[in-house]
């Protein structure tokens, strides 16, 4: 009986012959933390931690509230910088470099065979480049800082095969929302999701990252795809050598708890309605919804390919009266590229605000919090009640094409409707 990707990587990392269900101690290659690092530091000290077990294991990216919006956030950042200096941590990225998940990808931490835990649920993102990566709690991150290890259960796996050619204006975001609508917000609970199929083969790395980023929204422990030439080309551009990667592929006779096969050609442009990712409707069904604010960006859809799609629609057009547009590039690399290509000018000329790279308004801490009864159409991954800072506002999740068209129209729309 063969093994899944998860069974193989857990076996490789522990030197044991493991199957789904086994509970083991693992030493992750990296442990990611962000603005929560100062809170994690308090727990680390409470645990009796003095020196971190392995300074090279820590990856710290300030991104959640950058630049700091108040004294408390500023002090959190200050404590983190002091800690980084004291412990001589080599992998620290200052606010402005980007959202931790995009930084982890661009800086080459996410690579085939890497085993990464992060104190952020969207740590699942790195599987698009062949890594195993999963979210953990703050105390657990402190535990890894202190001991180098964490207990994990080898997950069962779900195979998702995506076939066919999508219709015009249908992107990776529409496909993943379709999956959410089909299986529900707990449809992949505890699973390692393995994505494959000719649709995935044809996807850009940016589009692949949408699936692994959102796999946690379906309950998954991690999302994964087989690294191919496209992945290695991307890694090479970002300084990762092939010899520093370990390609781990599932066996042909691996056992899956569930298998899902989807013909993407049948999928229409979609939105997820408030307040759950699985309340999926077509854009056509949602055209009566007026958008007070549109957010294009985040760790789900803030890459250059996403901004190009948005700019394609916004070029020479204006944001509708009564609607506000926020653009949030996922990293400084994306920001510079967008500037070089003239995309930022297009957004500003259309009447939008370009925010600095970071988490921005996605988690409701700053930079675009809504007023009561307002609606935001967002390319982010989460539309929970209160998510963007106001518990009587509403969030619709959509693709960059739909979000951009919505900004122009003022109501939820595809580019065809302009």
């Amino acid at each position, binding site marked *: 009986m063969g093994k899944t990707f998860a069974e193989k990587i857990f076996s490789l990392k522990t030197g044991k012959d493991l199957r789904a269900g086994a509970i083991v101690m693992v030493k992750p290659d990296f442990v990611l933390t962000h603005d*929560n690092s100062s809170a994690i530091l308090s727990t680390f000290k409470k645990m009796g931690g003095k020196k971190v077990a392995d300074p090279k294991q820590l990856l710290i990216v300030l991104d959640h509230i950058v630049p700091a919006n108040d004294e408390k956030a500023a002090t959190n950042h200050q404590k983190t910088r002091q800690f980084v200096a004291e412990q001589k941590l080599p992998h620290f990225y200052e606010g402005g470099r980007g959202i931790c998940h995009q930084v982890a990808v661009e800086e080459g931490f996410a690579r085939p065979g890497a085993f990464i835990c992060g104190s952020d649920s969207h740590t699942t993102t790195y599987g698009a480049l062949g890594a195993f990566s999963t979210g953990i709690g703050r105390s657990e991150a*402190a*535990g890894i800082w202190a001991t180098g290890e964490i207990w994990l259960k080898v997950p069962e796996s779900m195979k998702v095969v995506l076939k066919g050619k999508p219709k015009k204006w249908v992107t990776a975001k529409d496909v993943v929302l379709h999956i959410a609508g089909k299986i529900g917000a*707990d449809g992949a609970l505890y699973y390692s999701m393995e994505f494959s199929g000719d649709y995935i083969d044809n996807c850009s790395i940016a589009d692949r990252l949408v699936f692994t980023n959102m796999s946690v929204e379906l*309950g998954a422990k991690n999302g994964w795809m087989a690294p191919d030439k496209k992945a290695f080309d991307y890694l090479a551009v970002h300084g990762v050598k092939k010899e520093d990667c370990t390609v781990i592929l599932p066996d042909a006779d691996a056992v899956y708890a569930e298998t899902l096969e989807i013909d993407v050609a049948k999928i229409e442009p979609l939105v997820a309605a408030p307040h759950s990712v699985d309340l999926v409707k077509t854009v056509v069904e949602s055209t009566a919804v007026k958008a007070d604010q549109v957010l294009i960006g985040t760790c789900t859809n803030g890459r250059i390919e996403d901004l190009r799609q948005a700019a394609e629609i916004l070029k020479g057009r204006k944001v509708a009266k009564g609607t506000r547009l926020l653009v949030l590039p996922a990293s400084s690399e994306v920001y510079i590229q967008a500037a070089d290509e003239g995309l930022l000018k297009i957004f500003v000329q259309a009447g939008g605000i370009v925010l600095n790279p970071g988490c921005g308004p996605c988690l409701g801490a700053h930079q675009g919090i809504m007023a009561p009864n307002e609606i935001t159409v967002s390319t982010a991954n989460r539309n929970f009640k209160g998510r963007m800072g106001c518990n009587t506002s509403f969030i619709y999740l959509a693709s960059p094409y739909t979000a951009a068209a919505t900004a122009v129209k003022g109501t939820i729309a595809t580019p065809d409707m302009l």
Partner: protein
Amino acid sequence: MAIITGKAFVYGDNVNTDVIFPGKYTYSVTDPKEIAAHTMEDEDPAFVKEMKPGDILVAGKNFGCGSSREQAAFCFKYLGLGAIVAESYSRIYYRNCINAGLLAVEVKGLAGKVKRGDTVTIDTDKGTVKFPDGSQATFAPLPPEIEGIMKAGGLDEFIAEKLKKMNG
């Protein structure tokens, strides 16, 4: 641990971490008492006023989905909640409960069994949950590797003991 009896507070499926402990507080509210005061703020503002230490939260599928923020588990611990009983948990949330030393048990077939205010009894030794109609459901005990964390009272204490041993 043995018998926990408390009044039930009952919720549905997919209760997420944003409604349990809103994201806007994750970096600004750090005092345990203050964290506790915001518990379930966007799901049920009456919860913190009505619940008493030892009470039991009963929920449907995928409880605690969303963010990895552990304040969404620790807030219940700070309030002295007796336990959470749910059909299933989001995986990071479940881990956060263990790390908080907060009893969280997974029980199938809960729908319609309990209403707000009913008395529910959990026997952790036997692995049972008793409902007001006299019926009971069972839950699996924690694997021994993880039970140690609960026994220590949470991950802080567990790692502290481990570090002491490591450093002789």
